[in-house]
C-alpha cells in the first residue's frame, strides 16, 4: 500500500463500560463535551423538532380523522387537499410521513409498557367495539368485513392507538427540542451536560401527562384509551419508545444484508440491536431505508450554524444525510442519557454506599445493553 488518506485514519478506540459508568456517576456525559458535539446535537435536535412536530400532527390526524378508513389515500394531507399539495406529495420533496409510520409499526411490534398491555386487555375490547360498530353502521363494507374477520378491525384500532400514542409522545418531545434550541440560541445552553439536563427536565415535567385517545364518529365521541386507564407519558410511551426505537429497532435493508436462517438476526426479539443507537449511519441513501427518510426530512430544517459545520467536512454538503445521521445518533445518546439519569434509583452524588452500589448496578445494566452500540464510535467522531 502506498501513501494514503486511509492509513492516516485509525480505528475508534475501544472503551470499557466501566469507564462510562464512572463518567456518569462523576457528572460527565456519554457524549464527549466538545463545542462541535454541542452544535451538532442542538442543531440536529432543532431540525428533528420541526420534523417531529409535523409527524406528531399527522399521526394524530390519522388517528383522529382517518379512523378505520380502509383506503386512506389522503392520510398525509392533514385534511387539506389542494392540487399543489398533491403535486408536492407525488414529487416527494416533502415531509416523509412514512417514516413516522415505520416508527409506529416498530413500536407496536416490539410492544412493552402500559399501552401494549392495555391493547391486549378486555378493557380495550370494551372500548373499541362500540366505535367499530358506530363506524360499521355507516359503511356496509366495514360491516361485512367485521362480520367476516372480527379480529381485523380491532387490530386496526390497536394500530390507530399507537398512531395516537406516538403522536402524543412526539408532541412533547418536539416541544422539548424546540425549547432546547431556543435556549441554546439565547446562550443558556453551553455544554452537553446542559443539553442532557434540559431534556431530562422536560421528560420529568411531562412524566405523568396522561395518554388518552378518543374519536368522534357521527358527532358522538368514543373513548379508545379512556383517561380512566391511567396511561401516562413516561412509562407507557417514552420508555417503550426508547426500548423499541433506540435499542431494538428492526434490521433494514442496506448495503449489508442479513441471513435470518443463519440466525444473523436474533430469534428473541428482545435481543434485537438495530435501533437508533446501533444503526450504521452509512447504508442510507437507498430507497426504502427508513432512517434515510428521516434524514431527508431533517435536511430541510438544518440551522445555519450546523450547515456551516457540515460544510467544513470532507464531502461538504454532498453527504449531508450521513452527517445528519451521525449527529442524530449523538443527540439520541444524549436523550438516552437523559432517560437513564431520570430513571436512576438514587441521586448520582449520593453519599450512602448502599445507594451507590445500587446506582452502579443500575448503570451497569444500561451500559451492558450499550456494549454493541455506536457509543464508542461517537467518542471520536471528528473526521466528518
Amino acid at each position, binding site marked *: *500500500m*502506498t501513501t494514503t488518506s486511509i492509513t492516516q*485514519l485509525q480505528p475508534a478506540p475501544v472503551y470499557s463500560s466501566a469507564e462510562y459508568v464512572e463518567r456518569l456517576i462523576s457528572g460527565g456525559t456519554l457524549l464527549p463535551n466538545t463545542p462541535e458535539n454541542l452544535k451538532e446535537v442542538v442543531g440536529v435536535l432543532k431540525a428533528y423538532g420541526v420534523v417531529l412536530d409535523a409527524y406528531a400532527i399527522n399521526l394524530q390526524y390519522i388517528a383522529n380523522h382517518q379512523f378505520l378508513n380502509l383506503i386512506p389515500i389522503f392520510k398525509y394531507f392533514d385534511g387539506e387537499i389542494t392540487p399543489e399539495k398533491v403535486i408536492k406529495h407525488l414529487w416527494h420533496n416533502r415531509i416523509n410521513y412514512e417514516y413516522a409510520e415505520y416508527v409506529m409499526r416498530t413500536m407496536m411490534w416490539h410492544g412493552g409498557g402500559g399501552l401494549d398491555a392495555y391493547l391486549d386487555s378486555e378493557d380495550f375490547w370494551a372500548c373499541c367495539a362500540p366505535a367499530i360498530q358506530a363506524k360499521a353502521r355507516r359503511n356496509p363494507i366495514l360491516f361485512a368485513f367485521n362480520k367476516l374477520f372480527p379480529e381485523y378491525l380491532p387490530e386496526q384500532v390497536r394500530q390507530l392507538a399507537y398512531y395516537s400514542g406516538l403522536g402524543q409522545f412526539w408532541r412533547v418531545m418536539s416541544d422539548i427540542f424546540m425549547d432546547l434550541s431556543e435556549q441554546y440560541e439565547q446562550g443558556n445552553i453551553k455544554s452537553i451536560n446542559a443539553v442532557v439536563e434540559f431534556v431530562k427536565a422536560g421528560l420529568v415535567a411531562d412524566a405523568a401527562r396522561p395518554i388518552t385517545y378518543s374519536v368522534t364518529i357521527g358527532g358522538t365521541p368514543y373513548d379508545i384509551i379512556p383517561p380512566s386507564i391511567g396511561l401516562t407519558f413516561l412509562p407507557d410511551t417514552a420508555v417503550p419508545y426508547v426500548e423499541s426505537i433506540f435499542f431494538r429497532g428492526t434490521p433494514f435493508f442496506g448495503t449489508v444484508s442479513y441471513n435470518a436462517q443463519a440466525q444473523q438476526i436474533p430469534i428473541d426479539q428482545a435481543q434485537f440491536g438495530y435501533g437508533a443507537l446501533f444503526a450504521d449511519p*452509512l447504508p442510507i441513501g437507498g430507497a426504502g431505508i427508513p432512517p434515510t427518510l428521516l434524514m431527508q426530512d431533517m435536511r430541510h430544517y438544518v440551522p445555519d450554524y450546523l450547515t456551516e459545520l457540515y460544510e467544513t467536512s470532507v464531502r461538504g454538503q454532498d453527504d449531508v444525510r450521513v452527517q445528519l445521521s451521525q449527529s442524530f445518533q449523538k443527540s439520541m445518546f444524549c436523550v438516552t442519557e437523559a432517560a437513564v439519569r431520570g430513571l436512576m434509583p438514587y441521586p448520582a452524588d449520593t453519599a450512602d454506599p448502599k445507594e451507590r452500589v445500587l446506582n452502579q448496578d443500575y448503570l451497569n445494566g444500561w451500559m451492558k445493553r450499550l456494549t454493541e452500540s455506536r457509543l464508542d464510535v461517537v467518542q471520536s467522531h471528528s473526521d466528518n
Partner: protein
Amino acid sequence: MILSALILIPLIGALLIGVWPTAVDSNQVRRGALITLAVNLVVTIVLITQFDISNPDFQFIEQLNWIEALGLTYSLGVDGISLPLVVINSLLCFVSVYISNEVKRPRLYYPMLLLIASAVAGAFLAQNLLLFFLFYELELIPLYLLIAIWGGARRGYAATKFLIYTAFSGALILAAFLGLALLSETGSFDYNPSLVQGLTMFQQTLLMGFLLIGFGIKIPLVPFHTWLPDAHVEASTPISVLLAGVLLKLGTYGVLRFCVGLFPEAWMKIAPLLAWWAVVSVLYGSLAAIAQTDMKKMVAYSSVGHMGYILLAASAANPLSILGTVLQMVSHGLISALMFLLVGVVYKKTGTRDLNVLRGLMAPERGLPFIGSLMVLGAMASAGIPGMMGFISEFIVFRGSFESHAPQTLLCMVGSGLTAVYFLLMINRVFFGRLTAAPDDVGGTIEVTLPKVSWRDRVPALLLVLIIFAFGLQPEWMTRWVESTTTSFVPGAMRAATLVSQPSISQSSISQFQTTQSTKPLQQVATKQHNEPKAETISSESTPLAFAPLL
C-alpha cells in the same frame, strides 16, 4: 497537408511550451497543451469529414524526398485502418492532458505528452518503412521520461524495463525493414506490398518473424508482456490512458500493416500457429488478471488478454476478421482508457488500488457512486455485453475467425468469459458491500470518508462511455470508415489460402459468401446476396487490384 498538420501541430505546441521565454505557471501550460490538442482534434474532425469512405486506398497522400540515399522519404497517407487509430490518438491525447493536473515540471511534462501525440500520429500515417520506424522510436523517449519522472515508487525500474523491451522491439523491426530493403534489392523503404515478390518463402517468413516479435513485444503478446503491468502500475493515470489506449495499438497496427500487409503468404502459412499464440495470450492474460490484487495490474493484464483477440483476427485474415481487428483496436483503446481513467480516480481519492483494502466504494454520498457505476459499465463493455462497443468488436473478431480457426476462436471466447470473472471480482470487492477500508497495518476495518469527486474527474470517463455506447448501438458509424479498406486489405493470394484451408465447405459457396461480405458494408450483405450475387462476384475479382496504385 492535413496529415502533416496532425504531426506538426502537437510538435509546434510542444516546442512553444518548451521554449516560451517568460515564466508560465502550470495551469497556463496545461491550457496551452489543451488548446494545441483541441486544434489537433478539430483537424482530425476535418480529416474525417473529407475522408472518402468508398476509397479503400491511402488518401491525402503527401510525399517529400528526405534522404534519398537512404531511401527515406517523408510520405504520409491514411486509409480505413489508420484513420480510426489517428482519431483515437487525437482524442485520448486530449483526454490525458485534460486529466493531468498539478503536475510537477509542467514545461517538460506537457511537451512530452504532445510529442507522443505527434509521434504516434506520424507512425500511423507513415508510408515509408524508415519513417514509420523513426516515429515508432521517437514515441519511446517521451514515454520513458513520463514514466521515469512522473511515475510511482518503482518508476525507475518500470521505465527502464519498458525502454529495454521496446528498444529491442524497435531493433527487431529495423532489422526486418533493412533486411527487406536489402533482400528485395530495391533499396527502397516505401511501403509497397510488391517488395516481397522476389523473396523466397524462407526469407519472407524470417523477416516477418522479426517483425512479429518486434510488434509482439509492443502489443504485448505473452511471453513478451511483462513490461506492461509494471509500466502501467508505475505510470500516472494520463500516461496509462495513453499507453493502453493508443501506444499498444502501434504494435497491432504494425502487425496488420507490415506483417499481414507485406508478407501475406508467409503470414497465411503460419496463421494457425499465430492463432494458437493468440489463445495463449488471451488465456494467460485473463487468468493472470484474475490473480491480481492491484486494480491497475488487473486492467493491464486484461489488456494483454484483449490484445490477443487482435492477433486471432489478424491470423484469420479474411475481410470480416480484418474489420474485427480494427474495431477491436478502437474498442480496446476506448474501454481500456476508460478503465484506467476510473482506476485513476479511485486511486486519487482513496490513495490505494489494493483490492484487499478497498470496500464498498459504491456507497452513496460518502463513496464514489458515479465512478463506480461507470466502472460497472466499463467492465460490461470489456466483457462484451451487447449494446456496447466491446460486444461488436469481439463478435466480429470471433465471427471472422471462427471459420478458419475454430478451436482457437472457441478458446479465445473463454477469455471473454474470464473478463467478466476478473472484472466482477474487482467490482464486487471494491465497489460493493459497506464502505470501509481494511488496511494492512491497522487491524480490522475503519470508517472512510472519501473526498469529493469533481466533474473534471467524471467528464472524460463519461465521454468515453457515451462513445462506447454509441458505437455499440450503431456500429455502422464506425465500420463505414473502415470497411472499404479492410475488405480489400486481404490480397487474393491470401484469400485463396483461406479457401484451401476449408475443404469441408464448397468453394463456390465460400467465395460467394466472402465476396458479398467483402465488397459491401455489413448491413447490405443480406439484401445484396439475394439480388445480384453474380455482379458481386465480378467486383470481388477486382478487389485485389485495389492494391494496384501501390504496386
